[in-house]
């Protein structure tokens, strides 16, 4: 996020010197319309990533009898998380947590207490900051959906999301961005490598193992019902991610610009890395391959987008594209668990690759924005952030899922799974005459 660079400070001093405007002289707490304009847009872009972006990416990948169940999960999460965010989410993520502040915020801003059109957060209205951060809170549980798609009960999905959001998303978000330990340690996570991707990826892994494989997996042919939807979704994720990464600067400045540029570079590199690797190994490049590669690149550049330069982006793109390729198409097949849409394979693995490489690519010799400590120390700090996130999310997910399974059951019946979730759970069909 935005910081006071020496250049900025100099400018401020000069301005303070010659402009007798009290507001500026005091603490710069002035709304900047340019920053606000960009953050309004960035917020729309990140919401767009979930609905319709992610919903389509996931919806296209399942069988047509289940497409609505996936769309429903993404859309309902958008609704539920928004309301929870207002009630306690924003407060627990971003307010002071008192004695627990290292891990989670408090409830002083519950129900957005005290927020008015005049409240500022840096140079933008606090309302914009709240909505922007909300869109991150929405997409994270929606990402997990990919892991247990085509077999989870809708009610169980809602309960799980509510619990996981409360006990894993909010704390990790607070640790990284709300004043918690990641900040203290100096973990670099510009736009959510730990908070969003590793967090969600691990939850997905735990969930798909606990809930078990889909009926017929991997024997039956489980093919995407609409590759065009999948590609539209991937494209929307790509475009929307500009809001995600460049928006995380909370300002329309050079860092935001660079975040957009490196996002584009890493994504493109990861996409064509996957494409060429598949071409070499299988003889043909595929649409699903290149799209998945792009998402892997987007995931991996996320934590690094505020600190890496163009060359670092090439590296992160190539590393994430090829490691995720290898993991998803080979390792996963061997391990044998059924992560339906590779929530872990792409977001978990891609997130870890990105979080670690962020430490390296921030170094000035990699064209990054520079580090105050040695690369080795930074890498260790990044590693600590990754491990804490993995453990935290893993434990919360495990406990929440076990509890729900006991109370209401996680899975639909086999009959329902065979005939499709859309009709059984929602009395609707995806396509008709």
């Amino acid at each position, binding site marked *: 996020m935005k910081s006071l660079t020496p250049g900025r400070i100099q400018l401020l001093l000069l301005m303070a010197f010659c402009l007798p405007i009290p507001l500026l002289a005091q603490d710069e707490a002035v709304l900047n319309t340019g920053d606000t304009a960009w953050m309004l847009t960035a917020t729309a872009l990140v919401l767009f990533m979930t609905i319709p972006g992610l919903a389509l990416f996931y919806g296209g990948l399942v069988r047509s009898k289940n497409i609505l169940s996936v769309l429903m999960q993404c859309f309902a999460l958008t609704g539920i998380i928004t309301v929870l965010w207002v009630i306690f989410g924003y407060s627990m993520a971003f307010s002071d947590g008192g004695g627990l502040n290292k891990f989670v915020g408090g409830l002083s801003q519950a129900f957005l207490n005290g927020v008015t059109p005049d409240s500022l957060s840096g140079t933008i209205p606090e309302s914009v900051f709240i909505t922007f951060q909300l869109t991150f809170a929405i997409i994270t549980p929606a990402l997990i959906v990919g892991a247990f798609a085509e077999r989870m009960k809708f009610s169980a999905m809602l309960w799980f999301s509510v619990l996981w959001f409360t006990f894993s998303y909010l704390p990790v978000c607070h640790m990284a961005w709300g004043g918690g330990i990641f900040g203290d340690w100096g973990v670099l996570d510009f736009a959510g490598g730990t908070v969003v991707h590793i967090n969600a990826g691990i939850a997905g892994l735990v969930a798909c193992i606990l809930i078990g494989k889909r009926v017929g997996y991997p024997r039956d042919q489980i093919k995407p019902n609409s590759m065009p939807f999948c590609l539209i979704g991937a494209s929307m994720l790509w475009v929307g991610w500009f809001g995600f990464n460049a928006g995380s600067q909370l300002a329309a400045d050079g860092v935001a610009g660079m975040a957009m540029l490196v996002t584009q570079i890493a994504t493109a590199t990861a996409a064509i890395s996957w494409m060429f690797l598949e071409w070499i190994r299988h003889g043909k490049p595929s649409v699903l391959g290149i799209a998945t590669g792009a998402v892997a690149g987007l995931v991996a550049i996320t934590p690094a987008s505020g600190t890496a330069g163009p060359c670092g982006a090439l590296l992160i793109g190539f590393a994430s594209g090829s490691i995720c390729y290898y993991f998803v198409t080979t390792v996963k097949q061997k391990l044998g668990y059924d992560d339906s849409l590779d929530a872990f394979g792409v977001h978990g693995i891609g997130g870890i690759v990105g979080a670690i490489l962020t430490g390296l690519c921030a170094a000035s010799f990699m064209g990054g924005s520079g580090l105050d400590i040695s690369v080795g120390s930074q890498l260790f700090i990044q590693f600590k952030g990754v491990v804490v996130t993995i453990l935290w999310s893993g434990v919360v997910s495990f406990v929440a899922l076990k509890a729900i399974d006991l109370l209401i059951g996680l899975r639909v019946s086999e009959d329902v799974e065979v005939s499709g979730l859309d009709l059984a759970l929602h*009395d609707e069909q995806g396509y008709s005459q």
Partner: protein
Amino acid sequence: MKYLIAIIQPHKLDSVREALSEVGVQGLTVSEVRGFGRQKGHTEIYRGSEYQIDFVPKIKLEIAVASEMVDKVVKTICESARTDKVGDGKIFIVNLEDVLRIRTGETGSEAI
């Protein structure tokens, strides 16, 4: 020769096809159909408009078989398509007067 028309549950297609290959059936034709029968359909609701859908998705297999194979094929379908639930489907047997393979012009059981 006989022309068998079998209506089966969609998710049984793969196992039926494999079982038939094993008993020597070398060709068949598949179509997606909707069936009406004892098996209940389902309800759909769109903004309060409730529709009772009586038709359920089924797969239709058409298989030309030489007369001596008929019993074996019927038995194989029966076994591999069975789930013991209402809606498992039927096999209809019609007499087949002749067959012709377009590529070669062969006719009769040669052409199957």
